[in-house]
Every structure is written in C-alpha cells, then in structure tokens.
C-alpha cells in the first residue's frame, strides 16, 4: 500500500474514532463530559492539519494533551488552531504587567456580562420558557426572544472574555469568538461574527473539502458550458447545506438542533442563490444601499431572524417551538408584555445598566478599530481610571445575580 493511501486510511480512522467518542457520549444519552464537542473538534482539526502537512506532528503526548486541554478553552472553546496556539503554549513566558492587567480586566468584563446581564435575564425568563403554555401574544414572545438573544450573547461571549482574559494573563492570545455579532447585516455575516472559531472550523474542514470533492467537481463540470450560474451556485449550495446540517447536529442530537442549523442555513443558501438579484439591486440602488437607514434596516432584520431562530434553539423540542409560534400568533400580547415588565421592573433596571455598558462597548468597538476601549481607558488619569474600575467591580457585586442555584452554569457547557 502506498504512503498516501495509508495516511488517508489512518486519518479516516482517527476521525471515525473521534466522532464515535463524541457520538457515544453526546447522542447516546450518556453523561456528557463538559465541553466534549469543543475538544473533540480541536483534536480532529489538528489531525487533519497534520495529514494535510500544514501542522507539525507532535510526538510528545503531554504537549499534545496540553494543546487540547489548555484550561481556559477546555469548557466552551474557542476551538483553537494548532499553528496559532501551540507556539504560544510551548514557549517560555516572562511576566508581562500589561498582559496581566489587560487579562484581568477582560476577565472582569466577562464576569460583568455573565452576572449582571445573562444571569439577571435568566432569572426573568427561565420561568417563562419552563411554563411556555401559560403565555401568549406576539409582542410578549418577541420580547422574550429578544431578551434571550441578549442573554445568550452575554453568557457565551462573557465566558469567552473570561477564558481569553485568563489566557492573556499567562501571555497567550487565543482566537476571538465574537465580533459584535448583533450588528451584522446578513445571516452569513452574523456567522462570521458569532462563534467564529466554530464557523472557521467548518469552513476549513467541511465546506472547502466538499467544494473540492468529486461530487462538486462533477456538478461544476456538468454545468460549466450550459449554465455558468448553476455551475457556480449548485456546489456552493450543496456544501452549505451539508455544513449547516452538521452545525445543527454539532449542537445536539435532536431534530430541533438540525432544524436550527437548517433555519440559518436556508438564509445563507438563499443569499448565495439570489446573489445575482442582490447584485443587480445594489447596482441600481447603490445610494440607498449605502445609506445609514438601509444599514440599520439590514441590522434589525438580521437580528430579528436570529432572535426568531432562538425559538427553535432554546426549547430544544420542536413541539414546544411549534406551540410557542402558535402562541406568538395568538393576539398582540401588549398587556402581557407590560405586566411582565411591571412585575420584573427591579431586575430590568439592573439589566438595563448592564445592557447600556455592553452596547457602549460594542458600539465603541465598531467605531474605533484602531484602538480598543481598554487602551482608551488606560490613558485616563489615575483617579478616573481607578474610579471606573472600582465602580465597575461594585456594579458586579451589587447588580450581579449569583449565589443562586442554576446560575453557575454557562449556556454552552452542554455542548
């Protein structure tokens, strides 16, 4: 047997074994080790990179184990790239005051997001999800979906800030997983800014290999002369369909997760399929498309689609999703929404403060690519800077929700 064939068989066997491990724990209703999907995917990515010759073979088991189980990323990612992460992990590090301070600040920001925003929203809406049958109304359910969108973002990105902050304190820069995702103008852009490392993983190890596969080459060949549009679009649409099906499945074994993946996939595939129409529209109405109003409209539209997707994702049961959609279309629900707000006004005040800080940080990030908010703050006079830090910590202590059961979990631990 020649070397190439042997290597192909070995990598196939490795992938099968890793998927079996994941499948047995995740899809056979066994106790799921926290973060299993993350480190299985990281291991798989590394093996494929070695097979492709783009990463060095690590012969030291302990060094490999350190790469896979580096503690900040172990529970919820980011799914690290070997070539970027391993040199940093294995090299010696001198203590850096700047890294230690910035890392600590970032971790504190993550705690703020988790405790002041995500946990407070969880206190308000968890009961609604558990007792979904008692609530109706269009406005009421949209309010819950929007709140959940912020909860999930604050929870997941909060964990990332804690993980990246811890790593930065040790002098290690991990991949970023979020890039102000709710300011995206399309679903495809949203997934380039939300859970970035998962999207990158699927792009590198699923999407491109499918595009390069014999099936896609065959389709391209078949239509190249007859219809250039189909020759380009069909392989893309097919690869995207597979990717989104798998992204759904990555989240869990239920059909709800497959539906969630395909829900997002449908919008992405539609954007590819309808791209000639979009291009023509953009050309004809270039001024309108470039206007601020149109951009805001696109951002709002994308956010609403994403928020609606959570009606599939959060209940983890399609019958519940169907019932929620039914209840959503049953009346306006203004009275229910106002009552809900009135009953939880104290918590909403806390959430408002947290959200205002988060929005400010995200908007600042969008408008100041060249300098981060932390760098700006570090240039403040000492009294202002220290006042800000202490005030921020007091906000976490007095406005955060902690110490109650159920609040010590992160949403993506279950994956």
């Amino acid at each position: 047997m020649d070397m190439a064939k042997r290597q192909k068989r070995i990598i196939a066997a490795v992938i099968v074994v890793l998927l079996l491990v994941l499948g047995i724990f995740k899809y056979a209703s066994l106790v799921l080790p926290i973060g299993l999907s993350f480190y299985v995917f990281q291991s798989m990515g590394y093996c494929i990179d070695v097979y492709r010759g783009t990463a060095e073979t690590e012969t030291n088991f302990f060094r490999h184990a350190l790469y896979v189980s580096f503690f900040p990323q172990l529970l919820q990612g980011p799914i690290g790239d070997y070539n970027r992460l391993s040199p940093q992990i294995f090299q010696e590090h001198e203590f850096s005051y700047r890294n230690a301070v910035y890392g600590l600040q970032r971790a504190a920001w993550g705690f703020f997001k988790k405790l002041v925003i995500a946990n407070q929203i969880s206190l308000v809406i968890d009961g609604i999800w558990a007792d979904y049958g008692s609530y109706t109304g269009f406005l009421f359910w949209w309010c819950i979906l929007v709140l959940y969108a912020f909860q999930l973002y604050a929870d997941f990105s909060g964990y990332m800030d804690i993980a990246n902050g811890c790593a930065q304190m040790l002098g290690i820069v991990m991949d970023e997983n979020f890039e102000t995702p709710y300011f995206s103008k399309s679903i495809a852009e949203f997934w380039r800014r939300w859970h970035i490392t998962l999207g990158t993983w699927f792009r590198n190890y699923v999407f491109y290999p499918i595009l390069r596969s014999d099936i896609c080459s065959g389709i391209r060949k078949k239509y190249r002369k007859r219809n250039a549009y189909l020759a380009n679009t069909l392989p893309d649409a097919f690869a995207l369909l597979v990717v989104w099906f798998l992204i759904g499945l990555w989240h869990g074994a239920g059909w709800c997760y497959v539906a969630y993946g395909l829900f997002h996939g449908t919008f992405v595939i539609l954007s590819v399929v309808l791209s000639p129409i979009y291009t023509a529209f953009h050309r004809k109405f270039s001024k309108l498309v470039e206007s601020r109003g149109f951009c805001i409209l696109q951002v709002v539209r994308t956010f609403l689609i994403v928020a609606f997707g959570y009606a599939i994702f959060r209940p983890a049961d399609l019958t519940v999703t169907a019932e929620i959609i039914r209840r959503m279309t049953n009346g306006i629900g203004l009275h229910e929404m106002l009552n809900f707000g009135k009953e939880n006004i104290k918590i909403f005040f806390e959430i408002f403060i947290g959200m205002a800080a988060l929005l400010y940080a995200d908007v600042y990030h969008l408008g100041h690519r060249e300098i981060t908010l932390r760098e700006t703050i570090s240039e403040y006079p000492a009294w202002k800077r220290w006042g800000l830090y202490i005030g921020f910590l007091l906000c976490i202590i007095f406005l955060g929700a902690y110490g109650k059961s159920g609040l010590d979990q992160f949403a993506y631990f279950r994956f």
Partner: protein
Amino acid sequence: MGKFYRKLAALSVVTLLISVVVFSSVFFGIRGIYADNYQKGFVYQYRALQKADQNKPKIIVLGGSYMTFAVDSRQLGEESGMPAYTLGIHSGMGMCYILETAEKFIGKGDIVIMPFFPFTENDYGMDLIFVSMDSEPDLFFDFFRQHPLQVIKSSGAAAYTKLYGLLYSLQRYIRHKEDGSASVVYNAGAFDPDTGNLIYERTGCIAGEQDLYIKKVYEINDIDTNCYNELNEFAEFCKGKGASFYLTHAPIFEGAVISSDEEINLYQEELEERLPVPFLSDLREVLMPLEYIYNGAMHMNDAGKRYYTHKLYEDLSKYIDFSKE
C-alpha cells in the same frame, strides 16, 4: 509582578471596603421600609415562639404560605389544649431556613407538624430572608453565624433590593397611594402581631381561573432526594430532642389536581417509604372544595382555615391523647 500584585491587592481591598460600607449603610442605615411587609408575619411568628414557655410541651406547625392560609394556631391551641404556634409564611423563604429556624424552639414533648411540600437542599430564599431580617438584627446575626458565605453571596443583591425598595416607598409616599389590591392580604397588617396568624378577613374565593386550575400532578420523581434527606435529618433532630414529628399534606383546591387516584396512591406509598415519619392524613382528604379557597389553589379562606385546622386537630388526635396532655 510585585507591582501587579500590590495594585491588585489595593483594588480588592478598596472594593471590599466600599462594598462593606455600602452594604452596612444600606442594610442597617435604611430601616423600616419593610415594616408593613408580608414578611413581618414571619417575625411575629418567630417572636411568639421566643416568648413561649420552652419547658412546656407545645405544637409547632411549619410550612409555607399554604400553611399560613390554612392553620390558625389559636384555634388549634384551644381545641388541643396545648399551646400552638405556626412558623413560615412563604415557601420562597425556603423550607430549609424554616426547619432550621424551628430547631431553636423544639423541646421535649413538643409536637411538630409539617404539611409536606417538596423543596431542594439549598432551599434558602435569600431575598425574602433578608426582608424578614430587615429590622431584626438578632435574626440577621444568628443567620450570619450559621451561613456566612450565603449572606456574603447575597448581600449585594439584598442591598440593591433595599435601595430599590426605598425608591418604591418614596414613590408611594409621594403618590399617597396604597400598595395595590393584592397587597391587602400580603401585608404586615394582615397578621396578628401576637401569634403571627393571618387574621385578615378572607371570605369567599377571589382567585381567577388561571390561579385555581393549576394542573397539579403528584409525581414522586419531581421530588429532590435532598428533600428526603433534610426531612429525615429533621425527624432525627426532633427525636433527639424528645419531640414528635408528623407530616401531613398541604391543602389544595380539588379542581387543581389532575392526578388520578392510582397516581395519588402510588405517590403516597412511595413518599411514606422514603420518609419514615407518620403521615397524619390521606392526600385526598385535603383536596378542598371551591368554597374553602381564597386567592389561589393552595390558599384557604377563613372557612377553609377553620376546616383544615380542625382536621389537623382530629388527625393528630388519632396519634395523641390530648386529654392527657
């Protein structure tokens, strides 16, 4: 690295000091804003137990609001001829907290009764506990001694709640308005300060359908195993003190229960197996008609209270000869 640690320590100490100052000024400085609160009922009950003659056997009934709405300690005392007390006005305070508080008052010959209601191991409703301890430093320091970590973890939220409560009180004062219709019964004035009994006049049923037909299912698997452990430990504690501990079932509107007879039988059998404490009554005996219900499926009106209290006495009489007590 030294500079980093020094600055980190300074930041931590300053933040901690400010937190302690803020918490102390809010918690001990702002007083009385919960004076008219429903939680005051718990303080009345606690004080009544404190005043009780600890050398004389007594009856103590524990529970959440389902108990407060259904048990009149004065009536139970008169019927049984023993001094009777209640403790617990809200399940949200946590049954662990109520059991733990009751332990201070349990002595030889006492009869302790609890209408069973499932709870979890870490059942401490800190928001409500803080409210009840608001003007009662002895209660606060007692609890702090036993659960320092729990107090520290929830003190931030408690201070915020109190500041918010202050704003709310000011708003009410400015508007000269009552607290709202529901608060008439959920108010300190609804309790007898001497006994902690809910004496607010409750005639007829004022609950809406949503609060009545709650589709209650009695399912043994819904009960946290820690609940059994806590209750069995509590039973051991009572035994050690020479007191008798009995369980019964919380009253509930008959239309609220959707479990079948077989399901209820199975639930009771399994419950009795896991909790080797005598159950005073069958669950079906406390499924109450609408005429006994007040503002929720588990909240009795005055007629329901009289009925349930009398039934409690009768059930107890099967185990205890009150003529000898």
